[in-house]
Structure formats: structure tokens, C-alpha cells
């Protein structure tokens, strides 16, 4: 895709523009090199960990634990639950390290999938536990407003927050409830008062739009 030419800046001469463009291109190359190096490092560390190397797993932990903890914190909110989930996930990664297949996807993708699934399982388990043991007055239903408020106030999310904001409201609501609220599509449908099929469609369509904003353009 061709990049539209930037309008001339009267305060900017051609040499300066070229310098900025060159600097930007260099920055992109540098970041891509760093990402690739990090990816290769993770694969190597995981392979060593799969053979029982504790030092390698220690470094692997340092690199991926912010991903796992970040997901757990957003989904579970409660810090102590997020810490417990981080511990569970890291033990699971240690145990499953020999399963990792580089051809099937990236280490980061593998880690984030396991982390989110575990966090969602935990939030549903906590929800079920509370529903069984607490009075109706103490219901802890996660509604769209509380999830949306938390996301909007989370300035660390930067471009992700912007991408979510750019989604049509119907798709954004469904994705926020499912990804950050740990809701099933059935729960999403019930909460938003829509058909279950509509909830599935909104989630899928929203993810496809996010893909363009976060993956393809990225």
C-alpha cells in the first residue's frame, strides 16, 4: 500500500523531512529486529526449560510473566487472585514446555492463550463460588459499565484502548464483556439483550476489525 505524501511544512526543509523519514524507518527496523530477537530468545529458553533447565525458565519467567499477570489483572481485577493465577499459569508453562511447537505459532501467542483461558476459568469459578455462598445482595455480576470504565481509565493500554474505542459500540460491548469480563457469548447475549447468534457475530466481527488495527497495520 502506498503511503500518502505528507504536505510540505514551510518550517521544514527537504533535508529535515528526509532525516525524519529515515529515522522513522530505522526505528521500525530496530523494533522489528528487537521483536524477532525476543521471539527467538523465548523459543530457545523454552526449549531449554523443556529439558529441565531452571536457569532458562527463570529468564523465560522474567520475559513472559508481565504478559500473564497483565491479562490476569485485567480479567480478575483482584490482585491476589491474579497473583495466584500467574503462579498456576507459570507452573503450567513449565510443565507443558515440551509441547510447544514453533511451527504452530509464537511463544507469546501460546502464553497469552493459556493465561487468558486460566484467568477466565478462575473468574467463572469465583463467580460460581460466590453465587453459591453469598447472599443475593452481594452479587458480583460483572456488567458492561464496570468493565468499560476500567478499560477507559487504563492508560497503559494506549493503542489497544484507541482500537477498542474505534469499534462500533455493539461490537465493543461484546468484546469487552467476553475478553475482559470473562463472559460466555450466552452471558453476553443475556446481558445485552440480544440473540446468542448476534453476540457471536459481534464478537467475531469486532475481532476482525481489531486485527486490522493491531496486527496488520502494526
Amino acid at each position: 500500500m502506498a503511503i500518502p505524501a505528507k504536505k510540505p511544512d514551510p518550517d521544514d526543509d527537504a533535508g529535515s523531512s528526509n532525516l525524519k523519514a529515515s529515522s522513522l524507518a530505522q526505528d521500525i527496523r530496530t523494533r522489528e529486529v528487537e521483536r524477532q530477537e525476543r521471539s527467538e530468545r523465548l523459543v530457545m529458553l523454552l526449549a531449554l526449560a523443556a529439558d529441565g533447565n531452571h536457569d532458562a525458565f527463570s529468564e523465560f519467567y522474567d520475559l513472559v510473566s508481565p504478559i500473564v499477570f497483565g491479562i490476569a489483572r485485567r480479567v480478575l481485577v483482584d490482585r491476589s487472585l491474579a497473583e495466584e493465577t500467574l503462579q498456576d499459569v507459570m507452573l503450567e508453562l513449565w510443565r507443558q514446555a515440551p509441547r510447544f511447537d514453533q511451527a504452530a505459532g509464537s511463544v507469546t501467542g501460546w502464553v497469552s492463550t493459556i493465561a487468558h483461558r486460566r484467568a477466565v476459568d478462575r473468574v467463572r469459578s469465583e463467580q460460581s463460588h460466590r453465587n453459591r455462598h453469598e447472599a443475593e445482595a452481594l452479587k458480583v455480576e460483572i456488567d458492561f459499565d464496570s468493565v468499560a470504565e476500567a478499560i477507559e481509565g487504563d492508560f497503559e493500554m494506549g493503542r489497544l484502548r484507541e482500537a477498542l474505542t474505534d469499534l462500533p459500540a455493539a461490537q465493543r460491548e461484546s468484546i469487552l464483556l467476553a475478553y475482559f469480563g470473562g463472559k460466555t457469548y450466552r452471558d453476553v447475549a443475556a446481558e445485552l439483550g440480544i440473540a446468542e447468534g448476534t453476540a457471536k457475530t459481534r464478537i467475531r466481527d469486532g475481532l476482525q476489525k481489531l486485527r486490522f488495527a493491531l496486527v496488520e497495520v502494526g
Partner: protein
Amino acid sequence: MTISDIGDKFENNDAAGAFVLNAMSPDERETFQQRMGVDPDLRSEVDELRKVTEAMSLYLLEEPPPTVKDAVMSLILSEPQLDRIASESTVVSEDLATVAVLSERRAIRRGSLAALSAMAAAFLVIVGFVALDTPSSTVDDQIAAALADPMASVEVLQNETGMLRVITLPNSEDAVLVGSGLPALDDAQTYQLWAIDSAVEDAAPVSAGTFDLSDGEIRAILRRTSVNDPVWAVSIEPAGGSPQPTGEIVLISA
């Protein structure tokens, strides 16, 4: 459940997003995974949507307190079998939440893997029986169900002293290894399984993972890789494995 049943339940790919966001019930998830095994387009869409959740996760980074790492590293040190068990049993669910559960399932898995070794010649029939005898919610049931699949493909790799069977299934990501007769290696070395695309000239081998001997036997479940119709090979590599074969090729399929 038949493929037709699966198709009826998910008439189109709309559920792919809910699957990727873990927004399904466990039963629906299982059904969806079965359909993914027979629907490459659906699998491809899921892979693409997973790139979105991967990208999302990189905007959510948060440093955890150091105490958690201390606990994790301590638990690993006090459980020296974990890595070897992980090597043996790679068909594991992601629903383990506590160390206590880990220990419990490890005991179950030991039993199932011992059974797997014993049934090397007639594994399909025997595993069919195990599948009937195992609660549907267990990991062992997943192994048994996969091995009971009549579509299983068996490749035999053999040399003067050793033999290895590599069993793959069309709807599974696993490669089941059963064999014996290979020499024991020291701690600095490991066996590594490779898949080589038979349709491509000079294709680069793709690692399916490493495995070690247990009491002289090979009992491991690795990943089948994305290589279609592969030639399988086993090499001796430095501990932890190699990105590409560097050591002696000790077994290769005919």
C-alpha cells in the same frame, strides 16, 4: 458425535471469535475443537483471530511482584519430575489450577503412559478399551480417544537395534511415539524427532520436539508439526534440542 452433528451445531464460522475469547462453555469448546480438526478454513480463521488476542496481551503488560517468581521457582525445584513428566505426557489439558491437582493428575498420567508402552503392538484395540473405562473429563480420555481413531497413521522407523513407531491422527496435533532399542544418552544429549516435507525437494526439517528414554523404552507424545505427509527422522542433539539437526540421524522412516 459425527462430523454432521458438529456441522449442525456450528453452522458457520461465527463461533470462531467466541472460541478465541474463551467465551464458550467447556462442552461447546470441545465440540468446536473437533470441528476445527476437520475444517482447515475454520482452523485458519482461529489462528488469525488468535493473533489479535496475542497483540492485545502486549498492551496489558504489568510487572508482577517478585514473591510470585520466588514461589514458582521454589515449586519447580521441589518437583524435579515435572520436566520429565512434561516430556512424556504432552497431551494435557489447560485446566490445571493448583499444584495439588498437578500431582494428582501426574499419578493418573503415569498409569496411562505405562499402559501405552505395554500396548505397543496392539495399541488401537487396547486404547479403545481404556477410552471406555476413563471418565470423559480426564486428560487420559483425550489420549485414549485420539489413539482409538481408526484413521490413525503409523510410521515405523527402524535401524539395526531400535524401532520407533510414530502414530499421527488426521484431527489431532499430537504425534505419539512408542518404541525401544535405542541406546541411552548422557544428560548432555537428547533425541529429537523431525518432520520433513516429502513433497518438497531439500525441505528443511521441522522439529516435532525432543524425547528421552525411560527404562530403555520410548513413550512420548510430541507435536505432529504442520508438515503434511512427512518423512520422520530422529537425530541425537544437545540437551534441549536444536533448531535444525546437527547430530547423527539414528532413525528415518522408509
